[in-house]
């Protein structure tokens, strides 16, 4: 294992386990280049803070699903995600005249930018999908949220989703009512998701 791989493993493990000390190390090391890049490209400190936090969350989401096998440098990977995120935000703001500052910093940091573009895109898509689904789920009426949450929550005993009979029992409703309500709620949720612009981005 090279020293770079050890460092990557250390950072990824810290994110997975919520290790405060190492996560703070990531902030200490990378907040300046991220901030510099965003401030130099029509952004504010608040934007830089948000992008940084979103990048941390995106990495955690990725790590929750699968292992992240980084061939390059963690710092370069992190900065590249921030850059992608910020460029994406700028596109929405119609400010396209960005500078090449991040590449300069990356060069200065003497890290190679041999990032897997597909890997990066997949990570960002996953984050977008998560945000879209959880956001739309939370926008549903309370009774829908209750029914769907219970249906989706895994049963502690058999690690399978709750059956409709179990949901009906927990909520004190009849089975036919829950069955019909669940169907309607899923229909509504699906429609709401499909109506969102992010759904089309995800299906490009």
């Amino acid at each position, binding site marked *: 294992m090279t020293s770079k791989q050890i460092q990557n493993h250390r950072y990824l493990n810290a994110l997975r386990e919520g290790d405060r000390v190492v996560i703070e190390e990531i902030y200490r090391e990378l907040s300046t280049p991220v901030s510099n890049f965003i401030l130099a490209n029509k952004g504010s400190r608040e934007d830089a803070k948000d992008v940084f936090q979103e990048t941390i969350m995106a990495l955690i989401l990725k790590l929750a699903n699968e292992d992240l096998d980084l061939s390059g440098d963690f710092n370069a990977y992190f900065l590249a995600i921030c850059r992608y995120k910020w460029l994406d935000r700028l596109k929405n703001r119609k400010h396209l005249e960005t500078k090449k500052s991040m590449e300069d910093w990356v060069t200065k940091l003497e890290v190679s930018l041999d990032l897997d573009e597909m890997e990066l895109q997949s990570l960002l898509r996953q984050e977008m999908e*998560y945000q879209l689904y959880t956001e739309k789920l939370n926008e549903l009426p309370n009774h829908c949220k209750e029914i769907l949450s219970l249906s989706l929550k895994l049963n502690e005993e058999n690690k399978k989703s709750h059956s409709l009979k179990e949901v009906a029992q927990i909520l004190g409703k009849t089975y036919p009512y829950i069955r019909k309500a669940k169907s309607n709620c899923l*229909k509504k949720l699906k429609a709401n998701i499909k109506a969102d612009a992010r759904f089309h981005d995800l299906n490009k």
Partner: protein
Amino acid sequence: MDPETIEEIEKYLDQELDAKGKKEFEERLKTDQNLADRVDFMQKLRKNFALQQYLNQEQAELLPLTNELGEQYFDQKGLTDSDPPTVPIPLIPMRKWGRISAAAIILIIGGVCLYWYMNRDLYTKDHLITEFYEPVLRNPRSGIKKSLTELTQDDPEYLQAVAEAADQSLNQQQFSSSQQMLEMLLRMDSTNTRKSDNINLEAAKWNLLVLGLLNLEPDSLLNQLMILQNGDASLKYQQGAERLRKKMKHPFYRWAN
């Protein structure tokens, strides 16, 4: 989505269909795009709900932590977006400190070299001999009618003429000649009863010591100067010995010679 389809999809995803049912369902997935879309939707819904659960339960402290660190590293009091960025950056960056230190060192070394260059002559042996030499003859040409070559040792003026020659040799930077004259003067004086009040014998001894700069070992000379400084010589020569010792110990003395 009708309830039957939902239940069927959930059974498939929970792997509750038997082998035959699973095969039939997967065959339908290949041809029924609507069904495939619904399965895809349900899979994503389950996956993202599970992620939400994971973040809420197992990473419950993460959001407060990133909020706290975000404030610490991005929201510094008194800073605005037009200020230089974020995390405490020293007013003079470390790289600049390095340059400033290097410039300061070069300036100091340059200053010392310039000072040394301008004062280097003050510490040469020739300069020190000239500076510390004391005239042996109290009143030059007083009572001397002839030059040294015209006189014999029996002439009463001879001693004065030797002293005069010693002083003149030194003025002409002929140090070894001056040294010979001074040695002769002191040798003759010890055997000659015809002393002259015009001759300063203490100055002659002092001058010989100063001329030792040319041929004595520095340590030996410093030692003799120390003895003189602490001995019973006149105050003038005691002070002269102290000053000359200091000059000999100065780094410039070593560099100049």
